[in-house]
């Protein structure tokens, strides 16, 4: 009987697979790294790992393929790490995940390996700090860019107003004016942040208070919505699009402008796939009525799994991949911007990047980091829903943002990351700071530099909020560094320019 034989063979193969899982090579350390499974990114990572293994024959590195969509990858990581899987040893993190993973105790502090933090862009390092310790090494930087059709226009628009006007009055042959990432995922938050920044608004105050219901935010979101429905500049379909759908639209010549990351540039210059090869250019994102334009700061970092069996070997891979030569290699192969500041003086980079390195550096240094907080994902998810509801005309901007802000406040309160909540809970041993002091000292602690007690294995500490009252503030709140703009919520000196 057929079905009866089935299970038997299956049971056998089940046993065999289990046995197969535990084999080990002698003398060779195996580590795994998460990464893209397809496309240019996968090719270059494979090449880089081969180079590494030639230098280090005692380590074998395997790629654990992960989805390319950020939200899906995040979901997968969370599942891996919550399950305490030792695999993969090395994780490619999005810039906004480090705090969350560090706070949860899922990735290792790297301080003992002595990473060369000074060589990197300041903002990229700060995004990876948790309680003074570095938890991930910046790998490459992503900044939002405005792609425009240089064969149809003389120059890129300098403001969102001008962009809208040009997009609105485009020729009929170009079906879409401006395309951006509008699906309900992290990319929508990024698109919104960039608009918001140009309108002079922000999601969180430097002191950690939620400000996403401000006038500016309502105006920015209204602008985005009207660009779709009132002006027909942005296609409604963009509300289901992530990065690649916008790229496909733009590269088939169907859009005048596109907001996207640098990875799209080399792909669209490939004339075998792209109809706009040689007919487009990139520019900084336009300014708005409230401020100059700024890109959201994105990019990838490498971190080591807290349950890795081979942390030392994993670190060697991380150090290799984040070294200067490999970063240049990545810039050449995938068009990704190095996270090391000094590389922008190297002539090789000028050949590898579409943008003049000096200009690229200033765009990066002016880029808006997203809040560094262990609850970023939840904050973002609240915002994503509100934004998508407005953009699909289910809600009006003002009430939707007000509700989102309330929810975000409630969330911050619930997780005891709000100034008030932690001050109340401060225990007797810690002298209570005066109201104003508490507010100032606490704020960055709440958002940028979360509770002190959580740094070292969270399990060990029972009363983290006590420590948050003042401990981290003096040490982790450096004065605004020398960079032209210091858009980090950790540095209140950034003032009105601080988008997020």
């Amino acid at each position, binding site marked *: 009987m057929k079905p009866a034989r089935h299970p038997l063979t299956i049971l056998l193969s089940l046993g065999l697979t289990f046995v197969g899982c535990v084999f080990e090579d002698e003398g060779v350390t195996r580590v795994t790294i998460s990464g893209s499974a397809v496309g240019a990114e996968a090719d270059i990572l494979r090449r880089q790992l081969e180079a590494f293994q030639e230098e280090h024959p005692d380590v074998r590195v395997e790629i654990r393929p992960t989805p390319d969509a950020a939200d899906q990858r995040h*979901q997968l990581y969370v599942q891996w790490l919550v399950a305490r899987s030792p695999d993969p040893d090395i994780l490619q993190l999005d810039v906004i995940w480090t705090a969350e993973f560090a706070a949860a105790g899922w990735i290792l502090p790297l301080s003992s390996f002595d990473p060369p933090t000074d060589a990197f862009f300041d903002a990229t390092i700060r995004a990876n700090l948790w309680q003074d310790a570095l938890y991930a090494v910046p790998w490459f930087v992503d900044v939002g860019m405005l792609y425009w059709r240089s064969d149809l226009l003389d120059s890129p628009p300098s403001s969102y107003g001008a962009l809208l006007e040009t997009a609105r009055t485009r020729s009929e042959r170009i079906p879409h004016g401006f395309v951006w990432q509008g699906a309900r995922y992290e990319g929508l938050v990024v698109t919104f942040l960039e608009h918001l920044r140009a309108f002079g608004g922000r999601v969180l105050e430097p002191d950690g208070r939620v400000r996403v219901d401000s006038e500016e935010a309502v105006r920015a979101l209204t602008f985005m919505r009207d660009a779709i429905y009132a002006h027909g500049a942005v296609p409604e379909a963009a*509300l289901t699009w992530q990065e690649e759908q916008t790229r496909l639209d733009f590269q088939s010549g169907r859009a005048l402008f596109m907001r996207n990351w640098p990875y799209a540039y080399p792909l669209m210059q490939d004339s075998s796939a792209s109809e706009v090869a040689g007919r487009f250019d990139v520019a900084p994102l336009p300014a708005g009525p409230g401020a100059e334009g700024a890109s959201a700061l994105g990019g990838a970092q490498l971190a080591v799994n807290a349950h890795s069996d081979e942390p030392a070997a994993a670190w060697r891979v991380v150090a290799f991949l984040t070294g200067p030569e490999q970063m240049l290699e990545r810039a050449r192969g995938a068009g990704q911007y190095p996270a090391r500041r000094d590389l922008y003086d190297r002539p090789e980079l000028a050949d590898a990047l579409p943008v003049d390195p000096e200009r690229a550096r200033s765009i990066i240094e002016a880029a808006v980091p997203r809040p560094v907080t262990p609850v970023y994902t939840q904050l973002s998810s609240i915002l994503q829903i509100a934004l*998508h*509801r407005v953009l699909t*005309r*289910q809600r009006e901007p003002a009430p939707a943002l007000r509700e989102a802000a309330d929810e975000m406040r409630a969330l911050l309160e619930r*997780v005891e990351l709000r100034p008030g909540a932690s001050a109340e809970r401060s225990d007797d041993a810690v002298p209570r700071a005066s109201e104003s002091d508490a507010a100032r000292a606490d704020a960055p602690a709440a958002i940028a530099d979360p509770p002190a007690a959580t740094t070292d294995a969270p*399990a060990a500490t*029972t009363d983290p909020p006590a420590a948050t009252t003042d401990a981290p503030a003096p040490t982790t709140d450096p004065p605004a560094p020398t960079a032209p703009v210091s858009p980090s919520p950790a540095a209140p000196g950034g003032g009105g320019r601080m988008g997020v």
Partner: protein
Amino acid sequence: MSDGGGTASRSAKLRRRERRTAWAMVLPAVGVVALVALFPLAWTAWESMHLHDLRMPWRGRPFVGLANYVELFSDSRFREAVGHTAFFVAVTVPLELGLGLVLALGLDQIRRGRGLARVLVLLPWAVPTAVAALVWRFMFEGEGGVANQLLLGVGLLGDPLVWFADSVMAWVPVLLADVWKMTPFVTLLLLAGLQNIPQALYEAARMDGAGGWQRFREITLPLLRPALLVTLLFRTLDALRVFDLVYVLTGGGPGTATEPLSLFAFDALLQGLRFGYGSAISMTVFLIAFLFALAYVRFLGHADLMERG
């Protein structure tokens, strides 16, 4: 069973032995089910009374009583999810029952090509739900999707629709996919019910001069009642827990306009890692389904459902 001339005490002994054997035979399977289903269910109830956030291990797992439920009932996303679930059930179940009945009546009539018809009916049902959802997503995707092309072709649409960016239209593929996939199941159950109706009844009615409609109303419907009600119960409980279809088709969007309860719970659990809160949602889903089942069983009468028991 023959009584073999034994005494009362012997038959009592036999009964006792039989009871022991019965329990020994039943226990492994029932034990497994209790272990993998009943025990976790109790755990969910217990978990739902705790604050348990896997993303913030330093907060521990304190007991919070009904706090999660209090939060739940003030959460507008939860209320909306309840509404979406109710809407989904209210639309798909009657549609499937109606279409299934029509198909069953039709199939009951035909003689040639029954095998082929049966395969055609069975196929959509056998396709994994998540996979079916992908099929429908593809048909409604983009401007060049076949749904848009068809509607443009017959002039029902002037411009292609972006189905998944519209809080109302996004329901169309969701509902259609469910009807497509589950109507076959309904059809088969009803067809079996129809074939249980003795042909003689119809003959008699015809001799009495009853018309087709009258025969349907007087014979078919009443005799089909048990099958209809059981199907209704199955479909309702199944539709209440809808997850795969929406997860793949719309992800609950746009915004959260198509998010049912199961997806909301999944999101709180495995995306938000809020196990306490997520368990409270899960418990609520369970209670709703349970109440429905109770109501149906009461309404049906035990007899229809449990005539074997």
